[in-house]
């Protein structure tokens, strides 16, 4: 019998054989025990390889102590981010916004502060809660708490975006002419905040990588 070469079975084994090739191999398999055995044992090997799964993220427990440090670090970094954003907003140059209505700008600035204070407040509360729980955490629970921390950070991030978008919308309604210059300020604010969040994330990852 004219057997297909060993390497001809490979695309078939990985589900990449098509058309005429596939038909030919399948037909051969029907009538050749030798090749059927080869395919069977190869499939067994692939199935055995599946036994080694790499679970997402880190699976071993992180000491609660370290998690608290992360949380505190994140809070500080976030605080800095929002602070910088606010400062940028308040002192933004108005080169493109000549004739900028100071009243509108003041109201937007106040709104900005209000929204960010709320977001930051929520996040700080969440962190405080987390910290309390961490202090009580058993080893088995630390993994779950790590997930929680990540969730909180994601939430804070999403809220930050939402707040920025809401503000931009409001500015648009008030005056289209001033939109561009103000949007620039807000963009800077958003970028800086996001950048700080990203840095916080990186720092957390680094800390995690240093865990024994």
């Amino acid at each position, binding site marked *: 019998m004219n057997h297909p070469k060993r390497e001809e079975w490979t695309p078939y084994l990985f589900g990449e054989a098509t058309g005429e090739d596939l038909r030919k191999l399948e037909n051969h398999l029907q009538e050749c025990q030798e090749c059927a055995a080869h395919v069977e044992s190869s499939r067994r090997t*692939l199935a055995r390889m599946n036994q080694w799964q790499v679970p997402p993220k880190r699976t071993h427990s992180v000491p609660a102590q370290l998690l608290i440090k992360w949380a505190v670090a994140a809070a500080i970094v976030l605080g800095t981010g929002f602070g910088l954003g606010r400062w940028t907003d308040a002192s933004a140059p108005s080169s493109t916004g000549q004739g900028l209505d100071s009243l509108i700008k003041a109201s937007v600035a106040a709104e900005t502060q209000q929204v960010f204070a709320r977001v930051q407040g929520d996040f700080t509360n969440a962190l405080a809660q987390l910290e309390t729980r961490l202090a009580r955490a058993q080893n088995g629970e630390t993994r779950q708490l790590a997930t929680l921390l990540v969730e909180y950070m994601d939430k804070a991030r999403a809220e930050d*975006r939402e707040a920025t978008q809401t503000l931009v919308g409001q500015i648009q309604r008030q005056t289209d002419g001033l939109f561009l210059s103000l949007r620039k300020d807000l963009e800077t604010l958003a970028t800086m905040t996001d950048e700080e969040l990203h840095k916080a994330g990186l720092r957390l990852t680094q800390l995690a990588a240093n865990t024994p």
Partner: protein
Amino acid sequence: MAKAGFLSALFSITDEQAMWRVQQQDDHEAFARLVARWEEPIRRLCIRMTGDTHRGEDLKQEAFVRAFARRQEFKLDQRFSTWLWRIALNLCYDELRRVRRRREQSVEGLGEEGGDGFEDLATDAPAPDAQTAAGEEAELVRRALWRLPENYKTVLVLRHYEGLKIREIAEILEIPEGTVNWRLTEGLAQMQALLEVQLARQKTDRRPLRKDRTEMFVL
């Protein structure tokens, strides 16, 4: 809020668009999105290539640092993933070479490296329950893969674990598809042989489980 989409637009951009932003504006947000999309596959690749979770995670981190540092080298007519896989693989190769050098020096110091290289794959645990058996099996696969020559390991990991097509692997490695197919064939055959040797040992040899000798050099 039609005009307010400047941030939400980031939610649906392609890898290449994101990379364009990273190149043009050093856009951290765009890069963060690329990291979020790709860190798990890159992490799995690095762990499987090095057989070591900690090292794999470090290498993943390094891969993204390198990708950002070399962002201007990325050509916008190629696929971001192809470029990223290449960066990660090169880091894995460097790491494997470092491990091999350390190991050779160690072996010189000890004066010998005996046997067929399989002897440290022996493993056993008396009457394991189902869960332990699965864990042991995973360990055997990890060790067998570690033993596989780099060329074979790379294509097997990308094709079997990461589900890349032979064509895509050929593009990443810049070799003909036929070569990828051949390496897959040979790699799978060697993997089968390695796993069978272990299985046979597991049945006949009831020595207590000990650490893979290679791991001493990896860790």
